[in-house]
């Protein structure tokens, strides 16, 4: 008997209509756990680098992590993995909600889709019964609307649905997959679903999911609930409210947006408005939020409430979470009411709420700078908000200028030349970033921005505070009950970290410490993503219930896999390295690993190169950012080494053996 996992994947070939239930190899669970990691392994085996994102050969994998569906609070993530049409690297986007647990109860750890259907279809999975059904009548329908229509026609109110809107159908390169209160948004996976002509997946499962050591496991789960209860009463002092508690940033609950509106950038990540937040705005926004917010809602088996049901008069009800509340508002220099209104339409269309607003603001910049002319925007209303609605409508339909913008700022800029490329200033690896421009380089964030395989900071950052505490008393207070640290040295890093002076950014944390800190944060994300645990209770917040010291016990009791911290750390390293190798095989180089040029005002080219050198070395990668042969072999990834070698990728160790101070003159330097 398999524990925690079902031991089966569902394979569907949309070209031929072939459906298979395939038993998985339990050794993969021992090596990788599951979720993102085993999906990466499948991509490695079955998606060679020649595979185009929009092709029959590309795979679209919906994975439920190893602990999903067990009683562990927050174990509910669906990880969607594919080759990104935007970055052309691996895309993995996670969504909360209710989909993955339902998939597990239907008897599958993953749904693996390949091929391309001849016409628009949806998939209906009801335990063993799997049907590919016609979706002609759903063409052009909104994502939420589609979910409702499918539940009604199947007469299955309890079916969980993941669907695309018009953006996905029209292969917008930043289209999302929507699932009620949640969405898998980043890197254009909705476009891949649309390319496969798959409008939606509906699933209903009524089977048991077993755990190996029931009493032990329940004790651990009960402890998590108790800890969450206590932690909710004890927000971390001295940090911004959104960082003080557990869960995703509590954007739906919190009203005070002074920090975001005066620190994040408006427009196309362009302007900082330090004086924006006034008493008047506060009153007005409070009124708006309280009047449209009907209820705070959670994901499967989680006591937190990170999402909300939003009902704006005159607009259909929808659900929202996190920062999408402000992305449209700020991109358009508008008002919160506008943000809530347009987000409803954007959710039905299914677009990434980080990329879409920036792309629209970028489009208007092209007009302002005369790179595009009024003829390109014919029919666009004159009022500010109206222009954003108009652009959104064009983009998801790929009409006129919308057809170019639908490819995102990077690819659109390519069409219009140098001046346009300069305006597309907020990308990493072709992917729009948080609208954030700062002063002094932060070495830890520099590394995370550069090297994160998903190119999305919120999927890398986590358990180490983002900034130093001002006073020693605060620091001492913080480290007092900091049990989550993998090693005592992290406490010292924090205690010594100052706002100013020698031990402050950019030279402190030092290169070595920065590598340690990044490594810890990544490790936790990779564990969460393999287990299907919400980052909001694991890798993302300060002082979470799940951490490196107690995860081995959860995995042992649920899945019957006896591993210790060292073993779990090795698995996380293996998984992280495999993902890196996937991207290296698809052409990722050191030159790609750079934050937007204007991300920080104060940059330090030499230090930055030292940071990258140090990080690569720490990871066992060479100066090109490629895992070395001995690293790969040591992690049991010899097959990866063989493949990279066969393809002529240099996997030798080219770090100088003495004097870590300077990099060799000929190593590729990223221009900045």
């Amino acid at each position, binding site marked *: 008997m398999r524990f925690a996992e079902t031991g089966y994947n569902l394979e569907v070939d949309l070209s031929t209509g072939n459906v298979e239930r395939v038993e998985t190899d339990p050794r993969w669970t021992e090596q990788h756990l599951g979720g993102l990691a085993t999906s990466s392994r499948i991509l490695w085996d079955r998606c060679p680098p020649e595979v185009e994102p929009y092709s029959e050969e590309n795979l679209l994998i919906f994975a439920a992590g190893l602990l999903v569906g067990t009683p562990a609070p927050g174990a509910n993530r669906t990880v969607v993995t594919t080759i990104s049409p935007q970055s052309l690297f691996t895309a993995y986007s996670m969504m909360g909600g209710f989909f993955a647990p339902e998939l597990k*109860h239907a008897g599958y750890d993953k749904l693996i889709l390949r091929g391309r259907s001849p016409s628009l279809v949806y998939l209906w999975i009801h335990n063993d019964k799997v049907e590919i059904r016609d979706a002609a009548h759903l063409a052009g329908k909104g994502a939420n609307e589609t979910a409702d229509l499918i539940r009604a026609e199947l007469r299955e109110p309890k079916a969980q649905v993941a669907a695309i809107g018009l953006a996905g159908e029209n292969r917008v390169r930043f289209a999302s997959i929507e699932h009620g209160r949640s969405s898998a948004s980043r890197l254009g996976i909705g476009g891949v679903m649309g390319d496969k002509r798959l409008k939606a997946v509906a699933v209903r499962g*009524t*089977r*048991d999911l077993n755990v190996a050591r029931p009493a032990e496991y329940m004790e651990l789960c009960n402890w998590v*609930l108790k800890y969450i209860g206590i932690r909710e009463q004890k927000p971390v002092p001295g940090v911004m409210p959104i960082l003080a508690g557990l869960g995703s940033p509590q954007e739906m609950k919190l009203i005070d947006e002074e920090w975001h509106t005066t620190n994040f950038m408006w427009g196309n990540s362009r302007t900082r408005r330090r004086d924006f937040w006034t008493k008047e705005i506060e009153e007005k926004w409070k009124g708006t939020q309280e009047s449209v917010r009907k209820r*705070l809602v959670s994901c499967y088996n989680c006591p937190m409430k990170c999402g909300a049901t939003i009902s704006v008069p005159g607009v259909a*009800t929808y659900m929202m979470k996190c920062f999408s509340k402000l992305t449209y508002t700020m991109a358009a220099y508008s008002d919160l009411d506008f943000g809530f209104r347009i987000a409803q339409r954007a959710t039905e269309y299914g677009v990434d709420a980080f990329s879409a607003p920036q792309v629209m603001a970028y489009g208007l910049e092209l007009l302002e700078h005369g790179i595009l002319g009024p003829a390109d925007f014919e029919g666009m209303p004159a009022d500010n908000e109206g222009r954003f609605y108009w652009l959104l409508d064009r983009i998801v339909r790929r009409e006129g200028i919308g057809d170019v913008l639908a490819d995102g700022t990077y690819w659109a800029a390519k069409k219009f030349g140098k001046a346009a490329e300069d305006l597309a200033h907020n990308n990493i690896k072709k992917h729009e970033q948080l609208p954030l421009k700062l002063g002094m380089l932060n070495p830890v964030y520099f590394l995370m921005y550069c090297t994160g395989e998903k190119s999305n900071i919120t999927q890398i950052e986590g358990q180490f505070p983002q900034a130093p505490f001002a006073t020693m008393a605060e620091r001492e207070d913080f480290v007092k009950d900091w049990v989550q640290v993998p090693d005592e040295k992290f406490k010292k890093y924090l205690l010594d970290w100052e706002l100013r002076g020698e031990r402050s950014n950019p030279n402190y944390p030092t290169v070595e410490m920065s590598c340690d800190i990044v490594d810890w944060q990544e490790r936790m994300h990779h564990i969460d993503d393999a287990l299907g645990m919400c980052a909001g209770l694991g890798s993302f917040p300060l002082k979470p219930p799940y951490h490196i010291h107690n995860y081995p016990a959860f995995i042992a009791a649920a899945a019957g896999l006896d591993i210790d911290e060292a073993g779990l750390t090795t698995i996380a390293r293996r998984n992280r390295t495999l993902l890196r190798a996937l991207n290296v095989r698809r052409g990722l180089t050191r030159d790609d690993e750079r934050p937007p040029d204007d991300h920080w005002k104060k940059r330090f080219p030499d230090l930055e190169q030292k940071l990258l050198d140090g990080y690569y070395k720490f990871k066992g990668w060479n100066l090109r950012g490629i895992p070395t042969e001995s690293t790969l072999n040591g992690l049991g990834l010899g097959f990866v080494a063989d493949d990279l070698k066969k393809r002529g990728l240099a996997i030798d160790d080219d770090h100088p053996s003495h004097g870590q101070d300077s990099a060799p003159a000929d190593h590729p330097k990223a221009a900045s």
Partner: protein
Amino acid sequence: MDPTSKKRKKLVKTIRIDVDKCNGCRACEVICSSFHASPKYSSSNPERSRIRVIREPLRDIYVPVYAGEYTAAECSGRDKYTIDGKAYDECAFCRASCPSRSLFKEPDSGLPLKCDMCESDPPLEEPMCVQWCLNDALVYEEHEVEVEEEEGVEQGELELGLESLVDRHGLQKLMDTIARMKKKG
């Protein structure tokens, strides 16, 4: 008052449900199914839970409903509520395991489920679904009332299951089947 009637004290166990506090997480379903698994906590499956949350997020409908009595035949009349402008589905608040719907039936056998207030030995301080509802949408209360002495015992789970099988297949067929199974050993 009739002086001949015998009174006895009975403990009434109540779960107060505040739908306004429900965040729709279904933790109550998870833990109920896990608590009633055998061995205890060895598996989870909301379909086996004795509490189900009727959820329609986009209509802001969240109604935790406890499995009540098994009924062999559906009601001849149905109810439909509108509260605060929200129209609830037919029978939304009904607790019965009823042939008209799939709610509160074991997924494999179709046998009815009924909330037993997590009866166990030693008794729990609070039912599991209440313990796992950190949002206080479910709150446990106990109070004593005086009731007439009654004969008879509460219908147990096995009896409840058998009754539903009798309803479905007839007593004779059921007894024949049991006899046959007994022979097979």
